[in-house]
């Protein structure tokens, strides 16, 4: 669909001890998709598949309206990427990186790059290998934002950054998304970042998509109740997403909150965070 910046449909990739199993989600143009999941859940593998860095066994992936394997250089120049751990040449300094990038990206914006380097206080003369992890990430983000990209694919771009810098960078992402044709896919295990900026959340667990939904709907539709362990049997199991039991009672994640409230008026419902929703669901899956 042309209105989607990325569409992943039934993506399947089998490794010896891990598999992406029919992964499907779509990222509407103009939105931020938070791609969450524990380490090893398949976030990076999915991103590699989107970027055609690995061969997929089955499924289709569309990026900016083209099959991911047939992306023209023109379309690729509209994609900014930040990889977990930074993949910039270690021996180069930002000035030299600018020299290289302006010959790689036809739409390279030198002025924007210098401005980001100043903003992030990245020293021009130091080589990448002398940078801290946070500085490397900021440099990568600076590169991704300096060629008039329309789609940012960010793999753990905010991990390793202190909270102040993370906040600063999240604000830059929010600025970026102000243009209606700009889109971000942000994979992260820092849920607070996703809660802060994402419009949609896709949760991957052990290579499978557990949900891919609008963040507000997700929060609106779920809620948490506290009840006695004995009360659990009286609640329709269709409403129960997960239960955490202890000796004092149970904490229950409820779906279809609105209907639940109408049916069970005696329970006070608390707002569920994305992190809680994820934890309840993944713990439930772990039981099976």
């Amino acid at each position, binding site marked *: 669909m042309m209105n989607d910046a990325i569409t992943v449909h039934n993506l399947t990739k089998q490794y010896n001890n891990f598999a992406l199993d029919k992964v499907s989600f779509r990222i509407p143009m103009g939105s931020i998709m938070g791609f969450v999941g524990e380490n090893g859940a398949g976030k990076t593998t999915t991103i590699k598949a989107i970027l055609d860095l690995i061969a997929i066994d089955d499924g289709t992936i569309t990026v900016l309206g083209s099959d991911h394997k047939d992306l023209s250089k023109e379309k690729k120049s509209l994609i900014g990427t930040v990889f977990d751990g930074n*993949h910039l040449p270690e021996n*180069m300094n930002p000035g030299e990186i600018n020299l290289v990038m302006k010959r*790689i990206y036809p739409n390279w914006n030198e002025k924007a790059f210098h401005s980001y380097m100043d903003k992030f206080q990245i020293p021009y003369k130091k080589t990448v290998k002398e940078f801290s992890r946070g500085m490397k990430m900021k440099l990568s983000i600076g590169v991704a934002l300096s060629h008039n990209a329309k789609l940012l694919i960010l793999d753990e771009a905010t991990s390793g950054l202190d909270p102040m810098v993370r906040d600063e960078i999240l604000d830059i992402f929010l600025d970026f998304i102000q243009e209606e044709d700009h889109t971000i896919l942000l994979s992260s295990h820092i849920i607070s970042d996703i809660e802060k900026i994402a419009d949609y959340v896709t949760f991957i667990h052990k290579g499978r998509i557990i949900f891919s939904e609008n963040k507000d709907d997700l929060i609106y539709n779920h809620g948490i109740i506290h009840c006695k362990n004995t009360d659990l049997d009286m609640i329709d199991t269709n409403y129960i997403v997960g239960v955490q039991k202890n000796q004092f009672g149970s904490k229950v994640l409820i779906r279809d909150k609105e209907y639940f409230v109408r049916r069970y008026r005696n329970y006070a419902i608390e707002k569920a965070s994305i992190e809680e929703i994820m934890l309840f669901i993944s713990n439930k899956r772990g039981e099976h």
Partner: protein
Amino acid sequence: MAGLIIKDLINLKRYGKILGVLIAIYAIMSFINKDVSMFNGFFTVVLAMITISSYSFDEAAKWDSYALSMPVDRKDIVRGKYCLLLIITLIGLGISLLFTVSINLYTGSNSLLKDFEFSIIGGLGLLFLYSIIIPFITRFGVEKARIIIIIVLMLPMAIGYLIKNSFNNEIIIPEIILEISELFLQYKSIIVSIGIVLALSISYNISVKIYQKKQF
């Protein structure tokens, strides 16, 4: 692709200082001995190391997967490496020619062509060697390809040594081989040039095929 080559050259620039010192030492020794062969021989080895280092740098930084997310296709990356090899060889030959001219002027010797021929043979030998090893590096990476590189380097020497020892000078070379050898010597420049171009183009095509299927 120009960006990829510039990236490699900037990366390798870090070798510049160390190389400068080594070149100076060998140059002085060659001047003292009034013999360019030591310098040119050393230079060939240095050139051989440099191109491999560009692969090591890329692997250490996981550069390829990053580059492939840019407006760069897989063919560009392979082509960039072959161009880098040719550029380094040409720079090497240029420095070697400068040095050979200087030493000939200094010694008043008239062996410029003969001395420079030695460098050209070294350069062409390198190109041939790389046309064999680049596909292996592309397929296995520098670390795993190292052992293959050693085999490629040692194999001709080992075969030559074995032949020499087995026949122990009692070898009778058939007339036809002598005739072919003479013909080869007569047209050696053309034959070697065509051979190198052929080897490089076959090697390039194999590397592209390997790289198209590579996963990161």
